[in-house]
């Protein structure tokens, strides 16, 4: 873009959807401002920019708001054409990518959240569904990496890499707190290797919040949901 573009991201540190957009802006070297939103007390600005869902992330580009992380990603990729491209040109490859990104954001993330915010029998049920989704993903990884997990470089990182790592990046702290395995190297070895490689990327590593912060947030989430579900 020729003239100066004002870019501001409204987010919340624990949201994988916000992390995704943040990482993308960094990889594309786009100068932007970041505003941390308190989801208990959303700013008027946020409610004005996203009146329908009232959620983060919201990316504001020259005063115009964009919402929904995957939609924001496509916008960023189409607008800032220098640097690494996240979406391939080939329509079929693009369609596959869109399908799998949506799968991770919906089917994987939602079942994961069910596991994180439940206990007892309900948690067991949720975990079973979550592991089924991970198995499906594991099968697909064989197609994506037919020769095994390649070395992933910050320069050749793709959209699905980012979606996977941002959705699952807190798993270790979550596993420790809950006392159950989420990403099992024996059940889903390819996913485990892929995630491990992605977590080593400097950009990702630097942005990982501290263990205590993740645990603290998980405790808060569980408190909120478990108290509201016990009649």
């Amino acid at each position, binding site marked *: 873009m020729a003239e100066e573009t004002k870019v501001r991201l409204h987010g919340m540190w624990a949201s994988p959807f916000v992390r995704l957009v943040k990482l993308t802006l960094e990889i594309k070297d786009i100068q932007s401002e970041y505003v941390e939103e308190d989801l208990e007390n959303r700013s008027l600005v946020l409610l004005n920019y996203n009146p*329908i869902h009232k959620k983060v992330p919201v990316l504001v580009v020259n005063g115009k708001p*964009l919402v*929904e992380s995957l*939609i924001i990603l496509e*916008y960023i990729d*189409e607008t800032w054409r220098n640097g690494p491209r996240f979406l391939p040109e080939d329509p*079929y490859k*693009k369609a596959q990518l*869109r399908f799998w990104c949506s799968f991770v954001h919906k089917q994987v993330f939602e079942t994961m959240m069910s596991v994180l915010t439940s206990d007892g029998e309900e948690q067991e049920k949720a975990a079973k569904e979550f592991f089924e989704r991970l198995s499906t993903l594991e099968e697909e990884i064989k197609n994506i990496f037919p020769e095994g997990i390649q070395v992933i470089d910050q320069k050749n990182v793709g959209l699905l890499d980012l979606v996977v790592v941002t959705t699952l990046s807190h798993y270790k702290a979550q596993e420790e707190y809950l006392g159950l395995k989420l990403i099992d190297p024996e059940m889903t070895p390819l996913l485990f290797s892929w995630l491990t490689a992605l977590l080593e990327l400097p950009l990702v590593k630097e942005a990982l919040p501290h263990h205590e912060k993740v645990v603290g947030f998980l405790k808060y989430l569980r408190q909120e949901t478990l108290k509201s579900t016990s009649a």
Partner: protein
Amino acid sequence: MAEEVLVFGAWGSPFSRRVEMALKLKGIEYKYIEEDLTNKSPSLLKYNPVHKKIPVLVHNGKPVAESLVILEYIDETWKDHPILPKDPYERANARFWAKFIDEKCLSAIFKACWGACWGEEKEHEKAEIEHEKAVKEVSELLQFLENELKEKRYFGGETVGLLDIAANTIGYWLGVFEEASGVELLTREKFSKLCNWANEFVCVTAIKENLPPRDKLIAYFRNRFGAGNASK
């Protein structure tokens, strides 16, 4: 090179009809395969092993699933009669509203039409309150769409675009649900723009030719979900 385009769908599904509408708009020949959703074919299960759902588009043997993903694939593969604008912000906007319709509107509409019919006689009052809440929610959601339409003829501007096609659920199926359940949602007094748009939308050739017969659809939904308030 001979192109082979297959569409796996179901006659009453707005999602598979979307795919056919887009192909028709672009003048693409395809072979349609009707799926019995109570007895899915081995081909469907092979082409969409993850969700096992229709629609699936198979282009020269390669499958694409999820109606909105398919619409984008169609637009990127066959460049005549583009259904998405060129400007990245406008594209993001169209994608947002299409997702909004699928993720928020449809379930709210269903709840308003048939949600209150479940439950027993003595819970009638509670059901009434729930029903009113559901109707109010649909009204709020439709208002967003009414505002988004502004003074345009179609969501896509002068011609039908991806968002118009995605809004087929609002443009045609909503009327069917209303008649099948007896619940009024898209009223002319509140949503004159949307009503005008719906009337124009169903007249577009590529759309008209891909709408399932209204009576058959009404009967199907009445049968499946009950006549709701229609018989009162």
